[in-house]
């Protein structure tokens, strides 16, 4: 194994042993092989950049590199946008450690020397972020390489295998060229993704969010702090922001839009599907710290005369996230709330049973203008998972769910 700190400034010679210059950078061509070092760049004493191709490398060690061809056969092209240069694009840059779900800054890069029968190949193994790597960077060039190895061998190392490294590239065009995909990130839990996002700069956040599918993006945005939500949605195009907000629960969507500058928020709403936009607009009318501001309008509402069968049908056809359904709500013809049926009771009842018979007693609800404290106390006193919100005439407007209340309580603490 050899470190980049040992490779940098390595003297390079051609096949005849003539001095070429010092190693300046290594490049990987991700469109061919994302582990192989495809080009070695050498800076000549006359400040010319030589480009040694993979097949032209004969031997390489901590002492020197030698090519298998003579100097005149070596080209001199500078690295293009489609190559990952170790020094320019990896060293000292932030990367995402997909395995540990963390953002880290690269301190050193580990390579493997693989002698083939004709040439020698350098393969990237891992990026190094440990104390040993930091010490190598500090001592690089000040002591002999074997001394540095000796000194740093007692220090702890931390490496991230190259396959778990996700580079962060804000420029979408270059991202495509470098074949950086955030598909692995999309498999992470949105809460972990949110933690990762919080470590990134604004442009980098945008690049990650833009590459995720709308649903994952929405779940992730729901998990980050309000301040970041605002900054992030502000930096996206209104169209993309609308796609994401559409996928969020209406109450969360309303909360975010409330925080955005009025123009931006109106623009996002205008770009949303009419139906979703309408739901969010209704919620925007309520005061932030009241039951109305807390509630969601995604819930299952049935006529009071309905049966268990129709309730189960309604759950099957529910368009929102199904795991948030704890109860179904019964209303009379004039839309007043007349009953709440916990989902568990549906499971044990006969399919023809009238829902009215299964309704929990008493019917608990809060008016939309009730303050946060009242809502929290209701949840605590009655061990609720969901609480219906009604207007002054008892008509059902929405439902406050336990997860939102939990968030409130935590925030108050």
């Amino acid at each position: 194994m050899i470190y980049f700190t040992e490779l940098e400034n390595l003297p390079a010679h051609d096949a005849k042993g003539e001095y070429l210059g010092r190693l300046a950078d290594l490049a990987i061509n991700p469109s061919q092989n994302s582990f192989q070092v495809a080009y070695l760049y050498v800076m000549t004493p006359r400040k010319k950049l030589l480009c040694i191709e993979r097949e032209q490398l004969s031997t390489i060690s901590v002492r020197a590199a030698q090519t298998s061809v003579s100097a005149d056969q070596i080209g001199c092209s500078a690295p293009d946008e489609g190559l990952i240069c170790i020094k320019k694009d990896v060293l000292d840059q932030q990367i995402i450690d997909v395995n540990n779900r963390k953002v880290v800054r690269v301190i050193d890069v580990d390579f493997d020397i693989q002698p083939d029968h004709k040439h020698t190949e350098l393969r990237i193994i891992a990026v190094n972020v440990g104390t040993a790597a930091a010490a190598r960077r500090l001592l690089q060039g000040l002591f002999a390489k074997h001394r540095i190895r000796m000194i740093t061998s007692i220090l702890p190392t931390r490496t991230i295998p190259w396959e778990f490294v996700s580079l962060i590239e804000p420029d979408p065009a270059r991202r495509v060229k470098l074949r950086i995909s955030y598909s692995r990130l999309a498999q992470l839990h949105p809460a972990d993704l949110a933690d990762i996002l919080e470590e990134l700069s604004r442009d980098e956040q945008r690049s990650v969010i833009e590459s995720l599918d709308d649903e994952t993006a929405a779940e992730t945005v729901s998990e980050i702090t309000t301040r970041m939500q605002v900054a992030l949605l502000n930096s996206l195009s209104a169209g993309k922001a609308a796609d994401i907000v559409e996928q969020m629960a209406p109450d969360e969507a309303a909360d975010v839009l409330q925080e955005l500058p009025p123009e931006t928020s109106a623009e996002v709403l205008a770009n949303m599907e009419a139906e979703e936009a309408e739901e969010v607009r209704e919620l925007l009318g309520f005061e932030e710290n009241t039951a109305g501001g807390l509630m969601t309008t995604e819930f299952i509402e049935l006529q009071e005369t309905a049966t268990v069968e129709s309730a189960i049908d309604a759950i099957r056809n529910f368009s929102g996230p199904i795991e948030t359904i704890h109860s179904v709500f019964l209303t009379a013809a004039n839309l007043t709330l007349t009953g709440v049926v916990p989902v568990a009771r549906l499971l044990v009842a006969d399919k023809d049973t009238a829902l009215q018979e299964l309704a929990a007693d008493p019917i608990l609800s809060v008016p939309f203008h009730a303050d946060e404290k009242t809502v929290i106390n209701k949840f605590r006193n009655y061990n609720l998972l969901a609480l219906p919100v009604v207007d002054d005439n008892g008509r059902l407007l929405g439902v406050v769910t336990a997860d939102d209340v939990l968030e409130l309580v935590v925030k108050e603490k």
Partner: protein
Amino acid sequence: MRTLPLKWTRLRRWRTSLLIFLSVLGPGIITANVNNDAGGIYTYSVAGARYGYALLWTLIPITVALIIVQEMVARMGAVTGKGLADLIREEYGFRMTFILMILLLLTNWGNTVSEFAGLASGMSLFHVSRFVSVPLGAIMVWFLVARGTYRSVEKVFLAACVFYGSYLISGFLAEPDWKSAAVGTFTPRMSASTDELYMIIGLVGTTIAPWQQFYLQATIAEKGIKVENYAQSRWDVIIGCILVSVVAYFIIVACAATIFISGHRQINGAADAALALKPLAGGAASALFALGLCNASLFAASILPLATAYTVCEGLGFESGIDKRPHEAPVFYSLYTGLIILGGLAVLVLSESRQVPIILLSQVANGILLPFVLIFTLRLCNREDLMGPYRNTRTFNIIAWTTCIVIIALTLLLLIRFFLPDYIP
């Protein structure tokens, strides 16, 4: 759609930009105000006590220089969304960043010591022993940040800025001769005296410090201020810089109107100045002056360690942020807590003369650090790949390079005077 009458749209546009301004307000004003810390107040007091109104004019060029320097990092924060330490690490590598961060730690440790010393001497005027005021202040400061969220902390900081008003009041209570003050403000004069030159260098040095570059850019980046809103953010910076100078102005005026006039022009500390005000301007002015000193010391003692911890973690790649728990960001909290404890302890354990080496060390580190920070700022601010259309224009570059070179030259001069006093006048 219904169209609003022109007057209304204009009013609404004005209202929107006011709202945006209020949302980006903070980083500039807070950063600038921390410059008026214990050391700053002392320097201004001495300037007023020794030279009366004569040096007031220096505040105008100092304000301009401060604005030029701070505007660049604020712009970089808004355009790149990254902190200055981040950019330096990405551009100049690990070793350079590491060295700068060590220097920053040394500088700000010394500064923290002088903040706690300022708090101790300010509170002693209210007959509170330093063995009470320093630990109490340290605990307050630690809890404010460690247990708060970024937003609440920023609000407390902004509120603390209001207390600088006490200097304005004590300035008026000192009943200065406003005509002489006006003359001193608008007629630049330099005497041949080297003492006066060093006084001016001291004024520059206390106003323009390296840590503020890191802190301002990082807070602007973290606040997620967009390039489009940068115009408002620039006002935040400019207003902050002007506020600093206004406060400095009134401190100098208060001391000029009293201590300078009285003829006993020697003061040995900021608290000394407050004490000297008492017989000359009355108990109220003196108490307000001392209160301002306590507030400024406490304010700076909380921001300096915080800014240092942020910057070091950012540059070296450790997790940071007051929204994180201590076990999630151990290095960040260790640095923050360590600076407060070591800063407070130095004041409690060491006598005043024994604190001098720490302060000296910190000023040396500051003198080495500042040129690097200014030059890196200028070079980064000219990078097209980073700044695009927002990079420095040619005219601005001429002004900015000149400003920075003057600041660097003055800083180095001060440094040389410390070590080789025999070689320069």
